[in-house]
């Protein structure tokens, strides 16, 4: 079974700083998707960034980028020039792109506070 581990329950950084959220996962699959979801106080689940395991290039979306280390099964999220609106719970997530087992498995989350 797949597992996702986020070792940082909570983090705080000053506005405009760079912060990195850690995530490790365990799977025997060779092809899969990894995601970072943001859940602000509104509780909406917002997809921040996705990575396909077969792609070696790290995904980037504006201020958000990942460091994907497939051999180490590590998938960290870097937020550059952090903003107050980045304050949220962040979930690392895993999904197998298979027809009958495509549920998303979430980590326990990291609560991120951006301080003014």
């Amino acid at each position, binding site marked *: 079974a797949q597992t996702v581990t986020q070792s940082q329950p909570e983090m705080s950084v000053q506005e405009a700083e760079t912060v990195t959220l850690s995530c490790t996962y365990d799977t025997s699959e060779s092809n899969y998707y990894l995601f970072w979801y943001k859940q602000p106080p509104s*509780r909406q689940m917002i997809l921040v960034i996705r990575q396909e395991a077969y792609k070696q290039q790290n995904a980037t979306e504006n201020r958000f980028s990942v460091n994907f280390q497939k051999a180490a099964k590590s998938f960290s999220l870097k937020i550059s020039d952090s903003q107050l609106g980045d304050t949220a719970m962040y979930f690392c997530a895993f999904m197998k792109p298979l027809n*009958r087992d495509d549920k998303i498995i979430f980590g326990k989350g990291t609560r991120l506070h951006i301080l003014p």
Partner: protein
Amino acid sequence: AAGVIQSPRHLIKEKRETATLKCYPIPRHDTVYWYQQGPGQDPQFLISFYEKMQSDKGSIPDRFSAQQFSDYHSELNMSSLELGDSALYFCASSRDRGYEQYFGPGTRLTVT
């Protein structure tokens, strides 16, 4: 762009009552997923449907049932509600199994 619609957004029920949550997927999405997020918890997969058939099942209590209708909307029926059923229930849709899932805003269920 159209998003996943869930109704109601908030629901308050008493113990032992029944609740029905509805999910309207993004147009042309034929796959629907239900997740439950308890207070301070990560979302947990309940059940999914593809082309109106149950596709996968997670940790869904026997008191819960769900189905997907001909117009692809889905309903989650919850009976004999317990205090522990209080949670945020997300619906997500996808254009096919194994593709990116788009989450709705969630239904917050409170059981008193």
